[in-house]
């Protein structure tokens, strides 16, 4: 067995557009997905994540580059000869077949004998907790149930890789949360590599071992949820995952892995520099709101002054909007962990916002 369950090597996909022009949906994407991993392709709609998934499934062929599944180049292999199965966004359950027939379809195509099919279908339906639904038609099931049938229909074939295209998109919030945990449980149970496409960052963070953030056909960053949240490598990733503050400024002084950044209004702060920067370079500093404090804290070196413009109290936290001297606005999130938390400032009050060097990250892209 090769090291990777799926590998995309310099994959491009171009489509003819409606006006005859060429639309590039996927641009030079290279990804390595490990065996047994729960991997998410995350990005806004039109970012190329679904196209990438469809190329792994074989519904689309790459214009350039190659896709490997367990080390085997897929080339022009049609979908029905690939060791992967897909759970579709709209489930794509065959409306003219019963649930049992739907789940049995793949096994019938493989030529598995009848007794074995019956046994495995029952097993698969039990796994998604739909035993006894064999004789029903898809129309008679709720959205959540259809979703689980789609899962059973794919998993019953024991694919090497399971592809999921926004499978929870059509469900309501509560059901979606339930299914997220359910999917995670199933993945551990069957030990199959899951590749999951979603535009919902929270969903990606909740479920995945690793995430690839895509935008404009490019895979911007690949890493664990923690990596991506704490060490975003560009402005888009920092912005797309969670909430963050951006402060624009110029590099004034460079140390080994940190730099002093001057903001408009004469304020300056120290920030961590993952990439090399030079003095005078225009950069953006990102600081997560929960890593900023209004409350005095001795270890925080950076201090910027501003006025509170608005306060949102949401129980666990309080959000403060602050406009800095130079005119840039930031949001600060203070946790209300004390037994009797009170507001730390009033609207219009001048405050000093503090944060550590590590919390501030210089982004060059």
């Amino acid at each position: 067995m090769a090291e990777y369950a799926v590998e995309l090597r310099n994959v491009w996909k171009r489509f003819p557009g409606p006006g005859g022009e060429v639309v590039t949906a996927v641009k030079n994407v290279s990804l390595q997905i490990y065996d047994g991993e729960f991997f998410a392709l995350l990005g806004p709609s039109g970012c190329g994540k679904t196209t990438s998934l469809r190329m792994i499934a074989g519904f689309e062929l790459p214009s350039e580059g190659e896709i490997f599944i367990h080390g085997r180049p897929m080339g022009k292999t049609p979908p029905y000869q690939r060791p992967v199965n897909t759970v579709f966004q709209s489930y794509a359950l065959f409306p003219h077949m019963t649930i049992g027939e739907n789940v049995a379809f793949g096994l019938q195509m493989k030529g598995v004998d009848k007794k074995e099919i019956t046994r495995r279908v029952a097993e698969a339906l039990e796994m998604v907790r739909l035993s006894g639904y064999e004789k029903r038609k898809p129309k008679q099931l709720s959205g959540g149930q259809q979703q689980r049938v789609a899962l059973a229909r794919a998993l019953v074939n024991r694919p090497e890789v399971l592809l999921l295209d926004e499978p929870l998109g059509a469900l309501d919030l509560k059901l979606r949360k339930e299914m997220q945990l359910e999917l995670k449980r199933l993945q551990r149970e069957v030990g199959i590599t899951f590749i999951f496409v979603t535009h919902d960052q929270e969903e990606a963070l909740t479920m995945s071992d690793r995430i690839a953030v895509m935008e404009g056909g490019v895979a911007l960053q690949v890493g664990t949820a923690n990596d991506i949240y704490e060490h975003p490598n560009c402005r888009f990733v920092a912005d797309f995952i969670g909430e963050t503050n951006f402060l624009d400024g110029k590099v004034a002084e460079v140390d080994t892995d940190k730099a002093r950044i001057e903001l408009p209004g004469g304020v300056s702060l120290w920030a961590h520099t993952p990439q090399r920067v030079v003095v005078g370079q225009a950069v953006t500093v990102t600081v997560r709101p929960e890593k900023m404090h209004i409350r005095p804290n001795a270890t925080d070196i950076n201090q910027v002054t501003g006025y509170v413009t608005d306060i949102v109290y949401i129980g666990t936290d309080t959000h403060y909007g602050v406009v800095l001297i130079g005119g840039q606005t930031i949001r600060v999130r203070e946790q209300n962990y004390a037994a009797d938390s009170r507001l730390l400032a009033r609207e219009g009050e001048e405050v000093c916002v503090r944060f550590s060097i590590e919390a501030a990250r210089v982004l060059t892209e």
Partner: protein
Amino acid sequence: MSAKKQSPWLTLVSILVYFFLYAPIIVLIVFSFNASRTNVVFEGVVNQGPCGPFYWYCELFRNRSVMDATRNTLIIAFTSTVVSTIIGTMAALALQRYDFFGKKVSETALYFPIVTPEIVMGIGILVFFSAVFGWINTALALAPSQRLTMGLGTVIVSHIAFSIPFVTLVVRARLHGFDDRLEEAAMDLGANEFTTFRKVTLPLIAPGVLAGAMLAFTLSLDDFIITFFTTGPGATTLPIYVYGLLRRIVTPELNALSTIWVLVVLIVVAISQWFQRRE
């Protein structure tokens, strides 16, 4: 639309329109029991021979020309329906699901027969076949008995031609809401193109194909104009036969024929409805 209380005027107008639609049918049926041979005035119920009031019905079944015409009509309708349904469905799939060179032209070509008066198409086909047959007959110097002439073949071919666009139209309407993901799902689950078509695409578009076939069959059964120009010896269909009769004397036999016709269609429809309900 929701069901609401209907205005009495609307109801009255609707009943009158229904009456207009049914009056001729009722007249047709009643006169099939007419005692008068000339069938101009209703002179009481016929009671003649072993069949009694159904005298004209029995006469009908003894009439060889009618039986021949019925046979021809059915042969033409069945053959042209099968062929035009297959070709029309293929064209619908191509136009709805594929992109290819000449798609716009094909679309227009298939729309054209629908907006062309039948007589123009009939004349065209007549001119075409007489030219081709004349040319072949001369070129091969065929003896009079071997010469190619208009007949069942030319009628069937013409019916196929005018049915295809209608089949395509109906099947395309059905394909319009078709979810391509279903085919991808089948392929994803290991079915090749052929199996996918047989197990997923075809069952799902079957109602549309069936509706197209029904339309083609009805059009063929009912067609007069194109048949009129493309028929030849030994290929008289019922409409052509009836038209010929109208120029001579019409007996209540014709009414008996149309009564049976309506009954047969009603039975066929009832059976198909019953099948649909069982689904």
